């Protein structure tokens, strides 16, 4: 009897162990946007190909996600096996040894197909530390009907002075149309993303070669003068509260003559289900000033593996599936080519089906191709990043400076005062951090 019971117990235990081995659960932290939600819905394709791996999704708002994954990775909490991280985090975390290198994505992954600018943004010392899921740059979206009515035509890349003139012509608040909509909400990923690219276009840089902040330069003054003038005088009221989504709402409601923002907005503003002006939108590159270098940003949401994960192999399998060429075809077959995640693979922009479905594809490619995180300023600089400096201190600096610039836009302080405050607060932070 005892022998029978013992055998049964062993069988049960063995079964339990086999069951435990049979399934590896990957916990994936991600942001809530259309492309990521689509990926969640297509999970069955991955689990059918990998029956030994199950996926648990944790979707969070961007800022919450950033705080959550940063805490987890810094404390080696081990709560996540795959993390969605931006191009700002990848080089910093890779440098600290917090991310596992992606060296087993498979033979058919075709890493050389990843756009060079994006690939360089997610690599460190030649190794890939995250795989881009979708990428974006910035560009101008404008109302073709309003341009035609005002007799404006775009010939070549616009300058900020020309953009100002056009904004003046289009600005008719009595008719509910504002000349231009731009980000005014304070934050390193909000107004600072745009203003830094404006600064680049005016010949400015965040830090000189010795890591000294340069907000006291004439270039920054010109850039901020332009920003406060164009948005303050020809933008919507209460622009200091407007980020991407607020401007998207305004543009889709037909309230903006022009809008300079992320290239991913193109799919929203041309979607008749979301936009009242879907068939009236034109696209062109972000304006230049004294240079076009760094005049448009570069950002990508990427999938990376924290060093603490015990399931690196399974996580690499998942990342390989989610960022592969085959995944783009899977999305296209289920949801149409217009819905595939853009901005990461060159082959997508050679695909005639995609080019036909996405009228903004050429401009998006042009914008991403022209954004170089290493050479993004006219004068030499010590940091990597177009609209940010990939150093841990930048989040705090960007938020503080963004608040000062937002105050200048609101008229609470002058441009000179805002720049002076930005200079001294950044200088203090950099000094404290031991840069000089």
């Amino acid at each position, binding site marked *: 009897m005892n022998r029978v019971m013992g055998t049964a117990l062993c069988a049960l235990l063995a079964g339990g162990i086999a069951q435990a081995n049979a399934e590896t659960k990957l916990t994936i932290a991600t942001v*809530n946007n259309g492309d990521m939600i689509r990926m969640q819905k297509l999970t069955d394709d991955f689990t059918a190909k990998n029956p030994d791996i199950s996926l648990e999704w944790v979707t969070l708002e961007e800022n919450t996600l950033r705080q959550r994954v940063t805490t987890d990775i810094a404390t080696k909490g081990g*709560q*996540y096996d795959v993390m969605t991280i931006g191009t700002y985090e990848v080089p910093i975390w890779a440098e600290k040894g917090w991310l596992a290198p992606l060296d087993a994505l498979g033979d058919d992954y075709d890493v050389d197909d990843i756009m060079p600018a994006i690939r360089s943004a997610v690599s460190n010392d030649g190794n890939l530390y995250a795989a881009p899921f979708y990428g974006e740059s910035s560009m101008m979206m404008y109302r073709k009907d309003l341009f035609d009515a005002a007799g404006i035509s775009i010939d070549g890349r616009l300058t900020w002075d020309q953009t100002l003139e056009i904004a003046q012509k289009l600005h008719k608040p009595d008719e509910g149309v504002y000349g231009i909509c731009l980000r005014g909400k304070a934050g390193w990923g909000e107004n600072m993303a745009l203003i830094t690219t404006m600064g680049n276009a005016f010949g400015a840089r965040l830090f000189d070669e010795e890591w000294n902040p340069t907000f006291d330069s004439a270039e920054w003054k010109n850039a901020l003068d332009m920003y406060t003038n164009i948005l303050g005088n020809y933008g919507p009221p209460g622009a200091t509260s407007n980020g991407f989504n607020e401007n998207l709402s*305004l543009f889709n409601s037909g309230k903006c003559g022009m809008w300079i923002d992320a290239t991913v907005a193109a799919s929203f503003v041309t979607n008749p289900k979301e936009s009242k002006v879907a068939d009236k939108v034109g696209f062109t590159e972000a304006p230049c000033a004294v240079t076009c270098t760094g005049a448009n940003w570069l950002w990508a949401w990427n999938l990376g593996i924290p060093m603490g994960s015990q399931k690196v192999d399974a996580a690499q399998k998942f990342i390989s599936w989610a960022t592969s060429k085959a995944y783009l075809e899977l999305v296209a077959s289920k949801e149409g080519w217009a819905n595939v995640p853009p901005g990461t693979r060159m082959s997508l922009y050679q695909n005639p089906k995609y080019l036909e479905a996405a009228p903004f594809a050429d401009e998006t490619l042009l914008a991403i191709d022209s954004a170089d995180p290493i050479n993004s300023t006219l004068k030499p600089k010590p940091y990597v990043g177009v609209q940010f400096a990939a150093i841990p201190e930048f989040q705090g600096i960007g938020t503080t400076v963004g608040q000062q610039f937002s105050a200048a836009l609101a008229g609470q302080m002058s441009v000179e005062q805002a720049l002076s405050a930005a200079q001294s607060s950044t200088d203090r932070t950099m000094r404290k951090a031991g840069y000089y």
Partner: protein
Amino acid sequence: MENKQTPLGYVSFSVFAWIVGLLIFFPIFWMVLTSFKSELEAISIPPSFISFDWTLENYVEVQERSNYFKFAMNSVILAVGSTLVGLVFAVTCAWAMAFNPTKRTKDALLWMLSTKMMPPVGVLVPIYLLFRDWGLLDTRFGLIMVLFLMNLPIMVWMLYTYFKEIPTDILEAARMDGATLPKEIIFVLLPMAVPGIASTMLLNIILAWNEAFWTLNLTTSDAAPLTAFIASYSSPEGLFWAKLSAASTLAVAPILVIGWFSQKQLVRGLTFGAVK
């Protein structure tokens, strides 16, 4: 002196009260309304009030994307669990402070309340490390402990205030009749403090239900409550107001219903001892 209210005064007061009530309720009403709009309708300027194409598509999508009942069940367990654990400690603590005060009681009460003044993010990393080392990350037990400790000062304060209203003589009489300490608390003190205990429980349940810092930072999936459910519908790029409103409506619905049915008890408890 008797305070007689004129009809005009009564009407004015009623109108004022209604206006204030409607103003407070309006955001919730608007949220519910938005949850039945399409994303395009939700952002349209000027906003449409009633005359829009009512749709349930947001609720359908929320149901498809998330397991609402899992999140709701976690919210119930965390809110009720932390309240019950908290009550055990708060009742005994408030009893001691109300009926056997020392010269340091007031200081202790103030000190307890002062712990609420520290921003939670200040202790995030130490608590995260403790949770990691004790294997409490993403567990309901760990979160119940945090929520109970977080709300304990308020529970003690509230119960202390109610207990102070109860005459000590009654407890002494019970003791004279031979009641032991547990019997004195359970059979004499608690029945007299039911309104106060009920409102303390309700307030604590609401506070725990709405807590969004620790519940977001210490959970991933297994113990994630409705706050995590709502947070997953806010998007940095793309329209989300209608879906977020649907998720929020589902999240606040249970607590709204509980609050509605228990409002009499809640008001009675909160104003207990306010007018002497």
